[in-house]
């Protein structure tokens, strides 16, 4: 497979690369110096150069429609495009679409840009778009965007450049579904030719996938026929997996890499104290939560779930696990920047071990032992979990903590191997409609909890159909209140999450609001090399 990619890569006509580029099988790709060189461009972004990026995980599955975490989004959004994307201020703007929008309450129309080419030279057609969305909606794909598309009744190509989505009922959240990093457009021909989508990437994106060497590097080079003029500025982006926090930060500080993701809370001080580095972050999206399998005795008893929730000393978790880099979460799940009601719920889940003890006693579960699973791969998840333990013990509970590697952990959670899990994630997009993922009966996270509540589902459905902002605010407030009563999961802390890079890396913006997206990397350029 590597041979094939190498051949197609060379055949792809990167003349600048010459023939000496790729090191022996299994060794990290060494880029020729001509590729690393940055060409000054007065009056505009410099051209050329290769960005070396220390990535927190080694995304093993490169499928365009299946996300295994934010690290995989970086890769996916370089090689593939969606119809729309988030811009630097979080607004939804065009990507492959030239025009897009609702034509009526239940019809959404997208007209494609002309002359968009795939990396194999073929032209993007509406057929590819229809095929891509059908692939996402096919349950066998297990596409990350699949649940977001459940209101789509049909998708059709009406002419050579126009695609129309029709809906079962109005869906305010649909544009967010279109902009999601996993709603990418693939080549029908390529997929139907039996390409291995897990190990290869072939899209319309600004960078072409060269090779992934497990545990060592994943390399992308500039796609010369990219449809946006000028872009991309960089010649190449090389991702190096560095799952160990200390190793990742050290690699940045020694300029082994120009940029890293997931700056660990324990190193924020070291990064912000370094004048050569920039920390691009938010304290809004990423949050931690403890989920309960609500069908598993005794966690089927809401008093037990509530007791656990009230035994988590959130301010203390923030101060110890994240060294204060974040905010405690004792109310709404949605942050107030897109959920105006959020403040009204502050303080709904106080730390009260005595009350927790009382609840446990009522439920006949004094001295309960909690089997909890978490992941050792991300310190933003593992550390808060550890920091919760003293509070739980204060309420008389014992915790049996199991730490697993990320993929194993996700499998354990999905299979409900443990009754309690401690996780961290972010809302999929910047609208309370994304609550459905966590507390809606068909939500990705709610499924892990065996949680379904008719009243919440009803409210979420209403919210999705309603366009009036004031009305939506009330609906989602009700839904969150109900979730705080039923405690299928309890939220712990919002974490400060961000990337760090040298100041000579320009044009990169951390997603400011809305949703997690990595498209800013497409527009990144270098002032100079390290």
């Amino acid at each position: 497979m590597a041979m094939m990619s190498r051949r197609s890569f060379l055949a792809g006509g990167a003349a600048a690369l010459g023939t000496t580029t790729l090191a022996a099988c299994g060794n990290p790709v060494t880029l020729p110096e001509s590729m690393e060189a940055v060409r000054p461009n007065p009056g505009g972004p410099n051209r050329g150069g290769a960005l070396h990026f220390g990535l927190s995980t080694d995304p093993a599955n490169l499928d365009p429609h299946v996300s295994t975490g934010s690290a995989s989004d970086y890769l996916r959004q370089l090689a593939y495009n969606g119809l729309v994307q988030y811009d630097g201020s979080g607004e939804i703007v065009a990507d492959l679409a030239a025009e897009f929008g609702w034509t009526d309450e239940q019809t959404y129309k997208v007209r494609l840009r002309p002359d968009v080419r795939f990396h194999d030279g073929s032209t993007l057609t509406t057929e590819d778009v229809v095929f891509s969305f059908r692939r996402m909606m096919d349950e066998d794909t297990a596409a990350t965007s699949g649940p977001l598309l459940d209101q789509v009744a049909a998708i059709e190509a009406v002419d050579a450049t126009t695609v129309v989505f029709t809906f079962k009922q109005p869906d305010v959240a649909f544009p967010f579904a279109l902009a999601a990093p996993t709603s990418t457009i693939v080549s029908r021909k390529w997929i139907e030719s039996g390409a291995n989508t897990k190990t290869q990437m072939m899209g319309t994106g600004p960078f072409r996938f060269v090779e992934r060497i497990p545990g060592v590097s994943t390399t992308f080079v500039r796609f010369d026929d990219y449809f946006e003029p000028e872009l991309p500025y960089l010649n190449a982006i090389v991702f190096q997996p560095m799952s160990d926090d200390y190793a990742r930060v050290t690699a940045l500080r020694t300029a082994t890499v120009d940029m890293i993701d997931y700056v660990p809370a324990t190193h924020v001080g070291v990064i912000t104290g370094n004048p050569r580095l920039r920390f691009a972050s938010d304290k809004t999206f990423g949050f931690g939560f403890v989920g309960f399998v609500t069908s598993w005795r005794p966690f089927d008893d809401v008093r037990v779930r509530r007791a656990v929730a009230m035994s988590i000393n959130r301010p203390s978790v923030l101060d110890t696990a994240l060294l204060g880099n974040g905010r405690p979460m004792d109310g709404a799940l949605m942050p107030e920047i897109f959920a105006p009601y959020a403040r009204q719920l502050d303080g709904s889940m106080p730390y009260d071990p005595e009350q927790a003890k009382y609840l446990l006693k009522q439920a006949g579960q004094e001295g309960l032992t909690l089997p909890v699973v978490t992941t050792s791969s991300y310190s933003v998840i593992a550390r808060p979990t550890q920091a919760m333990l003293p509070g739980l013990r204060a309420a008389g509970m014992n915790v049996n903590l199991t730490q697993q590697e990320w993929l194993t952990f996700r499998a354990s959670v999905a299979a409900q191997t443990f009754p309690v899990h401690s996780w961290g994630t972010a809302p999929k997009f910047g609208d309370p409609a994304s609550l459905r993922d966590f507390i809606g009966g068909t939500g990705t996270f709610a499924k892990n909890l065996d949680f379904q509540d008719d009243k919440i589902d009803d409210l979420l459905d209403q919210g999705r159909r309603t366009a009036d902002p004031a009305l939506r605010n009330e609906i989602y407030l009700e839904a969150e209140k109900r979730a705080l009563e039923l405690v299928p999961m309890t939220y712990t802390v919002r974490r400060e999450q961000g990337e760090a890079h040298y100041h000579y890396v320009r044009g990169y913006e951390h997603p400011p609001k809305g949703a997690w997206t990595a498209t800013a990397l497409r527009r990144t350029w270098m002032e100079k090399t390290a």
Partner: protein
Amino acid sequence: MATAPESLAPALPGTPLVKGAGRKSLLQRMVSNRRTSIAGAFLLLVAVVAVFAPLIAPYDYRDIVGKPLTPGGPLGIDDFGRDVLSRLLIGLRTSLGVALSAVLVAGVIGVVLGLVAGYVGRWVSTIIMRGIDVLLSFPPIVLAIAVVAILGPALVNVVLVIGVLYIPRFTRIVYSQVLSIRSMEYVEASEIMGTKPADILVKTILPNVAAPIIVQLSLSVSFAIQMEAGLSFLGLGAQPPLPSLGTMVGAGRDFLEVQPTLLIYPSVLIILVVLALNVFGDGMRDLLDPRHRT
């Protein structure tokens, strides 16, 4: 993580070659050797501290006792607001516990295999000793990582895998000793007199191989501590919140510039314990080695 070869038996300078010292008791000779006795006393202290760690520790190792990463308490407060001294004590207990149990597993199995191979001989010894060769073909930490990964990261798995990996150390020593002792007259004599093989093994041969086994025990514990620390450092050993010295070193790296003692204390403790075990093992070898005793 240096694995010393079995033949690592140089006399330390300053260690008197104990010619004619055979009449003094072992303890007397040990005490008369300053280096060995200091190491021994330190190890005794460490053992006592480890056994009574939960009683000695000023706080519960899981409790928040102060502001994170501050100098409070005797040795400071760690990143989770826990008392570093208490965690060091429990960490020491964990590490020593794992290392001792592993070496005990290795010692018992290894000695029995060595005795059987040496005494029974023939195809039995061929099978056992070739098996030992095969075990020695695996770089210890590579096999340990693989096995622990497959069985799951748990202390009991670490004990088992280190235990199995260290069997050859004991089997080889006992085997060669048994071979040489067997040919001695008094063993031959008791065989002729019709003593049962098992009796000969236990009553005649075992006391004679005791000395090198004791030496090997103390050296093996020192390597087992390093191995446990290495596995824990990689996240395959003790699972939080239970500390081991290795996990404490791994966690301390993140705060190297804020509070370097979080890394330094457990590192120094590992080094001291391993050093004491090595010095003690060396000293014991000099005292017990029959070559030096004649």
